[in-house]
């Protein structure tokens, strides 16, 4: 092949590749990279009350270090992720395994499992606020039937965060169930039959056959669940507003408050950097793990 042809092929390939990448690149730069960099840039400055900006990275970092609400939000968020991620995933898997079987009323059950996902978070939170209400709430009324004195779920610092977690698990599990269900249905029936012949015990099959085949889905769901644990805070606006006394505040909610209720763009930007760093770290660890542990074939 003459050199020139090779060159032109190379360059046209090159151009073609860039053309294919362009739409995604433009969208990502506009809506992801640019805001991230601008948040980083903003985190270097502080705006005072006359509206003047000055360099204040050190001040911002010190504020962060000495800000008890920030540490509270961070620990809350770690607990929140630590509980809601596995809980909603396990629940999703169990529900998917259940509605993957053939039985009467299966569609109805599938629908009812998926229903919470279709409700907007804010609407769900508004309903749950009344569930949690200490005197008129559903939970305490049900508990009262069994003679148990219910708690002031949202008004007590020791239960408020748990109450928000429960709503999140209820809301997320149906969503993740869909992915598991799709993956379960994609398992070829001959494989299934073979497994059945080899190993009659259901739990043995589950452990050695179904779960490994669900590996890629589990990774996908896991990444999404972790991201959601840091990203979805809509319910806090309705349920607790981060209270009582910051007992249920989460990072992103605190960022919103700082930026829009306290007008402090600089500090909100540095909080955003912390969140970004945290999520970056999470995905790095996840991808590193996935190379070792997940079978894609």
């Amino acid at each position, binding site marked *: 092949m003459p050199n020139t042809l090779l060159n032109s092929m190379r360059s046209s390939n090159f151009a073609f590749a860039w053309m294919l990448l362009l739409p995604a690149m433009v969208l990502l730069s506009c809506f992801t990279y640019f805001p991230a960099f601008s948040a980083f840039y903003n985190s270097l400055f502080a705006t*005072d009350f006359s509206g003047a900006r000055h360099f204040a990275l050190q001040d911002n970092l010190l504020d962060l270090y000495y800000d008890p609400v920030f540490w509270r939000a961070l620990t809350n968020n770690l607990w929140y992720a630590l509980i809601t991620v596995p809980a909603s995933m396990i629940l999703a898997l169990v529900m998917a395994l259940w509605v993957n079987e053939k039985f009467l009323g299966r569609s109805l059950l599938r629908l009812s499992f998926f229903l919470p996902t279709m409700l907007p978070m804010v609407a769900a939170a508004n309903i749950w606020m*009344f569930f949690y*209400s200490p*005197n008129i709430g559903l939970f305490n009324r049900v508990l009262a039937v069994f003679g148990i004195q219910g708690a002031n779920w949202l008004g*007590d*610092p020791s239960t408020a965060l748990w109450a928000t977690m429960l709503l999140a698990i209820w809301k997320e599990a149906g969503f993740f169930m869909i992915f598991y269900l799709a993956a379960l249905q994609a398992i070829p029936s001959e494989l299934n039959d073979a497994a059945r012949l080899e190993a009659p015990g259901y739990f043995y099959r589950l452990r050695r056959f179904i779960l490994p085949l669900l590996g890629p889905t589990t990774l996908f769901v896991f990444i999404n669940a972790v991201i959601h644990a840091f990203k979805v805070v809509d319910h806090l606006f309705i349920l607790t507003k981060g209270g*009582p*006394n910051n*007992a249920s505040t989460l990072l992103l909610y605190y960022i919103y408050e700082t930026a829009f*209720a306290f007008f402090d763009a600089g500090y909100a930007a540095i909080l955003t950097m912390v969140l970004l760093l945290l999520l970056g770290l999470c995905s790095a660890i996840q991808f590193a793990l996935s190379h070792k542990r997940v079978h894609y074939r």
Partner: protein
Amino acid sequence: MKLNKYASTLSLLAGLAAAPALAETTELTMYYPISVGGPLTQVVDGMVDEFEAANPDVNVTAIYAGNYDDTRVKALAAINAGEAVQTSVMFSIDMLELQSRGVIRPFNDFVKTEEDQQWLDSFYPALMENGQLDGQTYGIPFQRSTIVMFYNKDAFREAGLDPEKAPTTWAEMADVASKLVKKNGSGETERWGLMVPSTGYPYWMFGAFAKQQGETLMNQAGTEVNFNSPKMVEALQYWRDLGDKYQVMPTGTIEWGTLRQEFLEQNTAMMWHTTGNLTAVMQQASFDVGVAQLPGNVEPGSPTGGGNFYLMNSGSEAEQEAAFRLVKFMTAPERSAQWSIATGYVGISEAAYATADLQDYAKQVPQALVARDQLSVATAELATYDAGRVRRVLDDAIQSTLTGQASAEEALNTAQSQAERLLRRANRG
């Protein structure tokens, strides 16, 4: 090409349709919040329609923007994006912040005639406290409230209390509340004596306890706070005691958003809440509702609350002039009366209470006059520089005390030092 042709024909048609008005129409955009229940956007839209009918040269786009925080965020974001927002209803306590950021301008700029001046002077003085700075008026009262005590007269009768005599002192309130507590056979509380909400706006409720101790939470300039004086500690202690010591109120925090429902379902015999809820409570209650001024300790009183009209530094001078006319129209006695009847918010001027509408309404619903009567002992709502954060540290102190995480004194000392630090920073800037 063909598409282009279509588009130009369409725009021509649209132009023709709008042409008669287009020549001299001024376009106004206004954002407003609603933070109490009921179909109130219709009421605002109706008032705006009336204004447009009376002023054919002005076209107003009134945008309902959610709660107070949402409204401020959206209005400021629209202005930042280069859109004109000539006026908005926003939190009365945001004035210092908005003014220091240069996004609002005083109404005085447009007060030209004797009549304008009379309009500016027509509002209840208590409602102007959060709206004036250095002799200039930045906020005109619109949806303004005070805290009042709603109580269940049937429960009073049941407990052998005089339903026309609501408690007027702290001691009396604790006493009356304990008589109203009803327990079932297994010792669980079926009906509480009193609920004071402590989420959403705890600092506002605390402002009432503070006023009743004869003190205010901040100085007039909004540069200093008074959170931890002995009187304040005593006030917060009393609030906590209602749950802990007298056991007439649930411990922990009490949700602002569900409290009205709790009262309507008779889970509490008394509640402190905004008068903005009055109409909804009166309509939905299945029992005899009483409304009373808040009790006092050193003296009676309540902070005012709610939203003011602001003139934004946005749009042309002619547009702002039209916005000034709009605000004048919306705050005229007839509209104020109409708004007060629809919601329960206080009428903003004596003239509003002199209108036939409101006088008739007050005959049917005498409870509607309580908030007005309380205005004579009302004080400003907590408003400082860096207001969001300062409110927040006080909210945290209140909640940590009510939930038993800290003593009233510890919590308020912390809040005081945090607020002082915030305000020092604000002053330094």
